[in-house]
Each structure stands twice: as structure tokens, then as C-alpha cells.
């Protein structure tokens, strides 16, 4: 039984307009996706900006309402209207936000920020609480004098650590990490990623790791799903995705990873232009007439690709 299973999840946003404020159209931010996350695993969700990754994550933690579809947590369906009220689910599924600055209340001290979930989910005395926050600060590598500071006094990397400390405060089983390192420079990225791996080992946490960068995901994830325009276009293990990509969109994302080897730069550039050309020419092979990806077809036991149905 997987820790979390998402079945045919759809999140459509109405676009209102006209005289009566009627619904004139919908944005299909998430349009029927399926995946499941195992205990202790890191599941990567990759796609370009606007492909619906954050919406997927927010729907799982209950910040957005799904239009249809189901979410199962340890085999039990999470009822949408009860999602935010189910204390157990709330405590066990936490989120690290894309924008670390905006995710920390500027008027609150670090102590109050990290202690917020503790105050809601656990009954601790003021001293126990402070001790726990100090422990958490220590885990994420921040010194104790951060306790009474405000978020603006920290650097981006430090703020992201505070966000992580808050997310792990209640010992959750699953953390939705929404581009936790996209806003950081490379050296700090590596630090934060290693450190996320470390607490994963220590606390046996599962991650849904959202990113637009296949280079970063390679370091983190065993299972990867590629998302485009609200649908999954390719799902597979790390090996499937990096070594045997089938969908043109995956190939395009892979070609976009910067080449660090100076000698093969020219070659890499050629390859990228080639992929770009195929992507533009073969739209019909990979996308239906509305521009949406096809349903996933199995290629191997672990590998699924959205290809036109061959009947």
C-alpha cells in the first residue's frame, strides 16, 4: 500500500467575465493525473512554469479544492471537505513553499513561526516548545540566536531552512517540497538538498519533490513524473527518464540541462536544436488536437509514456 495515491486528479479554475460574472472558460491547471508515493521515497514532479505542479502540491495538502478525482492516504480516501479538518492528515502532510520569504510571516519571530504547527497539533509547555524549536533549528543548521529574529534578517538559504524546520516540526510522513531550491544559488542548492536527504534518512520522510530542473531532480528522486499542461507525459524511474526518454517533451527538458563539459558544448547545442525542431514538427504525434497530452501507455513495468493510441 502506498503512502499517498492520487487518482485522476483534476483542478480546473473558472475564468469569469462578461456582464453577469459568468464562467466563460476554465483553466485546466491539473487535468487528470495519477501517481503514488511510497513510504520513504522521493517522488519527482517536473515540468515547465505553469504546467500545474504547484497546484498539484497545494491540492494534496488541501490548499486548493480538486474539481474531481481522489486522494488516498495510507489506503484511506481523504474526503475533500474534511481534508483540512482531519488533524492526522494535516499533521502528517506538510509543505515547503516555493518562495521562502513570502512563506514566513514577516511580523513573527522565528520561534513563533516554527512553533505554529506544534501549538496546533501538540500540547507542549512553553519550555518544551522552545526546546523543540531549538532542536529543529539545530537539525537545519541554524544557531540558537535565530529564535527571536525576524525572517527578513536571514538570507534566502537560511529562510528555506526555517521553512523546512517548520515542515518537519510535527514529524510528518510526507512533505510536499515545491521548488525548495529554485530561488537559491548553486552552492546553497547543494547544501539544502543534501540536508533534505539527511533528514529523510533520519526521520523516514517521503517527499513529493517539485521542480522545473531535471538536473536537480536527478540528485533527489527515485521516481519521476514529467508534467506538461496539466497532464503527465512520462512517468518512470530515474533510469527510465534519464537514459531512455520516450516523450519529446522529456527529451526537450533533458536537452535544456546546461552542459558543464566545455569540449562537448557545441555538440550539446546541436542536439538541443535538433530536439527543438522535432518538438515543433511532431506536435501531432505527442499531443491531441487541443494541445493536451495523450493518456499514458506502458512501455515497461515501470515506464509509462503519453503516446497517441495505436489501434
Amino acid at each position, binding site marked *: 500500500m502506498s503512502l499517498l495515491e492520487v487518482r485522476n486528479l483534476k483542478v480546473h479554475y473558472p475564468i469569469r467575465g462578461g456582464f453577469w460574472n459568468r464562467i466563460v472558460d476554465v483553466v485546466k491547471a491539473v487535468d487528470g493525473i495519477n501517481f503514488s508515493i511510497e513510504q520513504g521515497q522521493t517522488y519527482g514532479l517536473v515540468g515547465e512554469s505553469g504546467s500545474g505542479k504547484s497546484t498539484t502540491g*497545494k491540492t494534496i*495538502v*488541501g*490548499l486548493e479544492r480538486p474539481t474531481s478525482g481522489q486522494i488516498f492516504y495510507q489506503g484511506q480516501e481523504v474526503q475533500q471537505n474534511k481534508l*483540512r479538518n482531519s*488533524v492526522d492528515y*494535516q*499533521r502528517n*502532510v*506538510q*509543505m515547503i*513553499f*516555493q*518562495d521562502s520569504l*513570502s*512563506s*514566513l*510571516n*514577516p*511580523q*513573527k*519571530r522565528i520561534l513563533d513561526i516554527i512553533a*505554529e*504547527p506544534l501549538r*496546533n*497539533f*501538540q500540547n*507542549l509547555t512553553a*519550555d*518544551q516548545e*522552545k*526546546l*523543540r524549536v*531549538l*532542536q529543529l533549528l*539545530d*537539525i537545519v543548521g541554524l544557531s*540558537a*540566536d*535565530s*529564535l*527571536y*529574529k*525576524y525572517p*527578513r*534578517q536571514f538570507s534566502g538559504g537560511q529562510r528555506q531552512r526555517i*521553512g523546512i524546520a*517548520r515542515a518537519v516540526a*510535527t*514529524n510528518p510522513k510526507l512533505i510536499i517540497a515545491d521548488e525548495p531550491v529554485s530561488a537559491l544559488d548553486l552552492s546553497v542548492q547543494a547544501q539544502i538538498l543534501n540536508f533534505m536527504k539527511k533528514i529523510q534518512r*533520519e*526521520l523516514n520522510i517521503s517527499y513529493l519533490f517539485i521542480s522545473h530542473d531535471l538536473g536537480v531532480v536527478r540528485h533527489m528522486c527515485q521516481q519521476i513524473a514529467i508534467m506538461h499542461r496539466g497532464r503527465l507525459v512520462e512517468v518512470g524511474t530515474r533510469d527510465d527518464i534519464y537514459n531512455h526518454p520516450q516523450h519529446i517533451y522529456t527529451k526537450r527538458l533533458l536537452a535544456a540541462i546546461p552542459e558543464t563539459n566545455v569540449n562537448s558544448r557545441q555538440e550539446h547545442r546541436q542536439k538541443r536544436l535538433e530536439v527543438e525542431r522535432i518538438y515543433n514538427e511532431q506536435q501531432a504525434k505527442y499531443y491531441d488536437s487541443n494541445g493536451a497530452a495523450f493518456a499514458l501507455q506502458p512501455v515497461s513495468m515501470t515506464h509509462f509514456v503519453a503516446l497517441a493510441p495505436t489501434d
Partner: protein
Amino acid sequence: MAAKIPEVTQISESDLVRLTQEARQEATPTFGKIIWREFKNNRLALTSLVLVITFILFVIIAALFINTPKMMTTNIMDYYSKPFNKNFILGADSGGRSIAKQLIVGSRNSICIAIGLTVISSTWGICWGMISGYFGGKVDLVMQRVYDFMMILPMLMTIIVIVTIIPTYNSVTLTLILSVFYWMGTSRLIRSRVLAESQKDYVAASKTSGTSNWKIIFREIMPNISSLIIVDTTLSFAENIGVETGLSYLGFGLPLGTPSLGTLIANANDPENITTYWWTWLPAALEIIILCLAISYIGQAFRHATNASQQ
């Protein structure tokens, strides 16, 4: 729960106390301190603050020692008594009533009504705007229609009609009647800020931390718009002094026999008073100008301090 985390930290109780003290020493200046510093460096604002507070205290206390019905009895012997004599420091009006005493009692009445009006209408407007902006959707739609309805009512005319219809009323009922019509500006201002504030990730983070909606509105969002609230409340206080005064000036404010700044200024309706008996209306007019100026200087200092504290 806390024991589940591997003891990566060996923080003892005594360390906890020490670290807490250390952190407290390094803590950032609180909002109160920033405001205090602002006033210390801004002579004009400090003078205004002292002036306004001492004046309000003075009129409230002094008015306790004045017998209003006795003061308001007509005394034909003192008809338009000139100012600066030993009985009438500021002279007397056509009924031989002391202007100085009327000024004290009138200021007390006008200021207390303005304070009451500010407290009630601002509280209502703030709550209305925050709830409307935070929940959005249908709640917002309904609340904004109420707002629109209140806005299209011809305010002054409606108040005058109500005041004329109600047989007996005093300063308390007048304050309540006025409060019904003076919350809209605040509510619109607050709503637009809360609308923007609710989109920030710290609100989402509070939701996933299990904090209830009401707590999020009043404990998370409100501190972030406190500067707006303080500045708006200060400035609407200055404005509200004008509301009752204007109404009394027109003759629809406080009932006859109850002095107010407005009734004193209304002495200027008589062309003869304007030129010959200037002391009947000039002190009240000067008082309002000085009071409103001083309050807006205070408001500006608040705004400056709050901008500084957000850097």
C-alpha cells in the same frame, strides 16, 4: 512526540535558559520602540502628540467641574460680554453664556463623539474588510453588495432624516447613528490589502500548520496590516471630529442646549458675529484647525515609523 526525533542536540535546561537570554538580547527592536524613536526624532510630531493628549485630558477633566445646565442658562446682563475680563476670559455670546466654558464642554462632547465614532466605525470597517477580503468568493460578493448599497445612500441626507425622525437622542445615540455610515472607507481600504495579503504563502503555510481561519485573520494577517490600520484610524479620527462638528453646525447634530464645537462655530452664521463679535466663533474654529493639523502630523509620524519597521 519530541522524544521521537533522534537526539541530535544535547541542549540541557540550563543551556535553554542561557540561549533564550542571548537571543532576547539580540532581538530586533519592537514596533513600539520604533514608534518611540520616530517621535523622539520628530519634534513636530512629538509636540502634536503632547498637545493633543494634554488637551483631550484637560477638556475631559475640566468639563467635570462645569455645571452645564447652569452654564447654558441665558443671562441677559452679560449680553456679548467682551473677552479678557475677569468673569469671561473668552467673552460671552448673545445669551450671556461663557464662551470659554462652552468651549471646554463643547470640545469634550465633540471629541468624545469623535473617539466613539472612530472606535466603532473603524472596528466595524476593519472586521468587514478583513472577512470580506480573506474569505473571498460568495462571502465577499454579498459583503461588497452591502458596501455598495451603503455607498449609494446619500449619507448626509439620511443622517439628517434619521436625526429629525428620532424624537429623543443624545450623544450616545448620535455616535451610533453616525457609526452606521462611516465604516465604508476603512473597510474598502482594508479589504484591498487583505486580498493581496491572503495570496501570500505565509497564509497558506498557516493553513497547513492547522491554524483556524479566524486566527489567521486576526493573528497572522492583522499584524501585517497594522501600520495601515494605525494610520487610517488616526486620520479618520481627525476626519470624524469634522463629522459631528459639521452636523451640529448645520443644526442637526447634538440637541439644543448641548454645546459642541459645531454649535460654537455656527455663531458665525450671523454676519454681525463674524465682524463685531469675533470671539463667539473664532476660538472654536482655531481649535479645530489646530487639532486636526496636530492629529495628521501624528498620523504621518506613525506612517513613517511603520514604513521603517517594515524594512
